[in-house]
């Protein structure tokens, strides 16, 4: 039996760990103390050597990202923790923020110290009211202890941390839209270049990292780069919190070293597909990553293996789809999400998601027309690579990957004006009664 490896989620189940005192009793803020005794450059070097890659989706090496920060800007450097977590299928950042908020605060402080940012922001998704309260309190306690603000822990370091609640938009998780939103503007993604590292928030050099990424930093500082790098695979180092959801018996967050297979996650940790059904497909990294067929279940969960299987590890939101699921229906629901969350800035995404969602809806209802699958694919092609920001590409991913895997099922809906599974469902239901 494989065990979880608890690095980010260490001590998370200890009662009261969401308070400053319990957190510190269990070694909390030791890493911050250690970091403050080091040169910032040395902290950055440690993170670089650990092989830590961003947990927000793109998997960009964190230390390298930090080292890109413009050195001679006239404006201050900022650090932003991205807690907008809105990708369907992900709920790990929320858990960290709700259950062990001080770890994120500690990670933010260390990272700000390493990057020379005197001002850090934690941008939290608007809907996460409880997590926001938890963080608010954690930040206040940290300040009260003298661990944030002026002369942190008696050192020369000054770092302020401010929590900012979003107004509830998926796009605000995109780093440049997040900065716009933080500045009090409408959450539209910005033109790049300039990249945030050169001119980001308020025009200053800015580093943006995912909450989990930043919450990993304390452990790396405490135990060293080599220790961290000893987990995971050659190229995908360390652990990740996999968010397991969908048609599975035991959904939840599981922190595992990278390289463990989807089968292990789904079957050992998740207790297998629910209701005794079979696996039809699974989404490996959140709704924006291409779904994979059941045949890919033995793929190791690391960046490279998932990529060669034809998808992405993304934000590690694993969604299990059982064989009683109408794939057209499932994709239709996903597309609704993108239609509603498109920021509306660019034409292909604003109009394309609207069109796709309507087409899928009519397909799922058995009202599809002869060329609809071809049309769906061509709409996706006209969006692919042509939208302003990655959300547009994300929006076509479920459609493209589902058509690739289940083309006949789409066509069945058109030819028979019905779902192949509805009969299956009906007979199954009849058997039950």
């Amino acid at each position, binding site marked *: 039996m494989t065990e979880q490896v608890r690095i980010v989620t260490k001590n998370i189940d200890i009662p009261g760990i969401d308070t400053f005192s319990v957190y510190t009793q269990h070694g909390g803020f030791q890493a911050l103390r250690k970091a403050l005794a080091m040169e910032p450059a040395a902290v950055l070097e440690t993170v670089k050597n650990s092989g830590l890659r961003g947990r927000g989706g793109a998997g960009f090496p964190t230390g390298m990202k930090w080292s890109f920060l413009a050195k001679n800007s006239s404006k201050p450097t900022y650090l932003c923790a991205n807690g907008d977590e809105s990708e369907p299928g992900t709920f790990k950042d929320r858990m960290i923020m709700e259950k062990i908020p001080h770890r994120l605060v500690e990670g933010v402080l260390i990272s700000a110290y390493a990057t020379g940012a005197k001002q850090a922001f934690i941008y939290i998704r608007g809907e996460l009211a409880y997590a926001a309260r938890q963080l608010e309190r954690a930040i206040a306690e940290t300040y009260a202890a003298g661990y944030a603000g002026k002369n942190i822990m008696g050192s020369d370091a000054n770092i302020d941390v401010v929590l900012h609640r979003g107004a509830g*938009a998926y*796009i605000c998780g995109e780093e440049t839209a997040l900065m716009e939103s933080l500045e009090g503007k*409408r959450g539209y993604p910005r*033109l790049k270049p300039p990249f945030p590292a050169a001119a980001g928030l308020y025009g200053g050099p800015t580093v943006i990292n995912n909450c989990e990424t930043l919450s990993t930093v304390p452990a790396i500082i405490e135990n060293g780069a080599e220790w961290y790098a000893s987990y995971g695979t050659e190229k995908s180092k360390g652990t990740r919190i996999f968010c397991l959801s969908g048609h599975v018996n035991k959904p939840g967050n599981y922190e595992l070293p990278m390289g463990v297979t989807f089968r292990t996650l789904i079957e050992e940790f998740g207790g297998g597909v629910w209701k005794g059904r079979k696996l039809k497909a699974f989404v490996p990294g959140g709704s924006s990553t291409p779904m994979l067929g059941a045949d890919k279940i033995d793929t190791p969960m690391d960046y490279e293996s998932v990529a060669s299987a034809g998808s992405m590890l993304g934000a590690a939101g694993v969604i299990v789809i059982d064989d009683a699921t109408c794939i057209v229906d499932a994709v239709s629901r996903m597309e609704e999400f993108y*239609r*509603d*969350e*498109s*920021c*509306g*800035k*660019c*034409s*292909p995404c*604003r*109009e*394309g*998601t*609207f*069109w796709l969602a*309507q*087409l899928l809806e*009519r397909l799922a209802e058995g009202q599809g*027309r002869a060329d609809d699958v071809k*049309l769906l694919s061509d709409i996706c*092609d*006209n*969006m692919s*690579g*042509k*939208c*302003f920001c990655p959300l547009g590409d994300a929006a076509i991913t479920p459609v493209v990957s589902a058509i690739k895997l289940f083309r006949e099922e789409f066509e069945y809906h058109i030819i028979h004006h019905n779902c192949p599974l509805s009969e299956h469902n009906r007979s199954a239901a009849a058997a039950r009664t």
Partner: protein
Amino acid sequence: MTQDQQAASQVTLSIDGKEVSVPKGTVVWQAAQKLGIDIPIYCYHPKMSPLGACRMCFVEIEKIPKPPQTACTTECTEGMIVHTDTNLVKKARKGTLEFLLINHPLDCPVCDKGGECDLQDFTLRYGPGASRFDLKKRHFTKPVPVSQNILLDRERCIACQRCVRFTHEVAMQPGLIMENRGYRTQVAVNPDAPFDSIFSGNTVEICPVGALTAKSYRFISRPWELRRTATVCSGCAVGCNVQANVRVDKLLRHMSRTNDAVDDGWLCDTGRWQHDEVNSLERLKQPLIRKNNTLTPVTWDEALDYTTSKLKEAAQRTPQLVGAIGSTHTTNEENFIFQKVVRECLGVRNIDHYHGVFPSSAAGAVPWVYTGAIADLDHTGSIVLLGADPYTQQMTLDLRVKKGLRNGAKITVISSEPTHLDSFAHQVLTIKRGSEAAIAKALAYTVIEEKLWRGHFAENNTSLIQSHSARYADYSPERMEAALGVSAAALRELARELAESSGAIVLYDELTTKISGNETLAADVFDLGMMIDLITRKNSGVGPLFHAANSVGARDMGVLPDTGPGYVKIDQPGFDYNAMLNGAVKLLWVMGANPAKHMEKPDMMKSLDFLVVQSLFMNETTQYAHVVLPALSYAEKIGTFTNLERRVQVLHRALNPLIGPRPDWEIIKGIASRLGVKYSYRSSSDILTEIAMNVPLYAGMSRGEIGESGKQWAFAEEKESVSAQR
């Protein structure tokens, strides 16, 4: 910049096999423009920052991953190879158009924009022939008013954000915003800032589709019914370059002709839409003579014979009792021939116009005019508005100041009244009415005391500085602080800034000089400019902001009692405007002016023995007239105006002239010929030729030389020395 530096800041790229060199930082769309290669755009606008939203301007660029790219956001790099016509590009553009059309109402037959709409035009050129969309379109209530003059049809909107960005970036009055997201995205009025800008009409013009329409133009015309004439707005002294749109015999609107030097591509709403004067049904059509105390229609011959006999008789007997009032709304040609006939044929010296002689304009041979260029505001370091509010008088100049601000200029407003630019200025100094001249003097004092003078003129003229130091001795900023309550430190700092900055512009409203206390304002500001080299320094200038379309032209042409055409001094000046109206003359000839409107006691007019008025309408003055001669409006005639930066611009005939009225120059010519002087002018061009030959400032000015974008007469450097000796 040396040649090497210039070469280093250029990049060379190829587009569709043609090479082009452009400055670093230029986007691919601009480079293609230069080559005459058309790349369709919706969201991009050359006067606003790139957005990259519409995804229409696709091109393929070799070696850049993930083709295609957007030409409006991609900066040119050395050796870049761009293709605008590949299959990939064609499919992508077609895709975008299809997306834009799925929710479009396709109500082109009743859309004002139909016929001049980029959505129609690009669909024809790049779009799909048919739609594959067979589902439910999105609907919005429509149209909704977004301002008093503009309506929004959200179903036609393609969300390019041009309108919104115009209000935020260009006008800096953020009246419009984008609301909601995704497919519900729409333009809306900013709940915190009403859309009441005087520049709102520009959004209608730059909207690529028919989403924003002007109330005054809705359902009035099809674009192909319009006759479009390149001409100049006569609304104010800026002289924005416009295309007059006429349907049958009505001037419906002005659209911008984009002369970057003058208007930067923008118009104000008054200039764009207010054409009542031209279109009015109340226009005078026949000459009138007062008979039995009522103005009675007569023939032109009768009216001109009668007028001439009256003028001739009086001029022969008592020329000192004859007066003439010219106009800031008639052309240079008309003002020129007017003063010529008055002076040469009648031998009358009393000539002026409303806001002609100013207490402080007596700068002798120096033309009293802004010495810089409007476009200098774009890249200057410091702008001082001393009792001036362009937003209310020289409208598009306000956008120019804001552009300068965005480019880094420091703005200082010094005024006794709140001005529109107060909230944009780095510094607002509120002063007592009439102390503008004292402020200018304090700045001059500081220049002398702190030895801030610069430039060849001041440096080679120790005597100038000496005489000025006596003249300004009593105006130290500290004394001004005690007397006027303006911070001395701020004045000193401002003087240093003006002296040291890369460029500086000091402007005051023409009427500010009329306020008691400001008698020397024009001279003081000019002295300041001379001492710190604001006349010849790059991106610099000083001077008045005039109000009327041809304020400067009327002065240039010598419709002034003390100077003839080209500011040639007249030995024995005649009576000025006020004197003439206050009883100094008994016979008055008025061209294109309405003095009674501005008089405290218009009944003074009754004391005139004879009053002849050339006018478009019956007005306050004509009611006292003995003869009224109906004139044509600027839109019906040809001629030139000179704007506030000394730019001579050509007016073209946009409207068929009304039958009956005549252009003012023709009326004057008719009077001259009855006086026995036969001019051979067949058109106003002939008069311009004469002006060019006789007035050195206008040397070489001809319709061809002036061209489409106008020609500035040079504020000659030698003139400085003239002023210094006054």
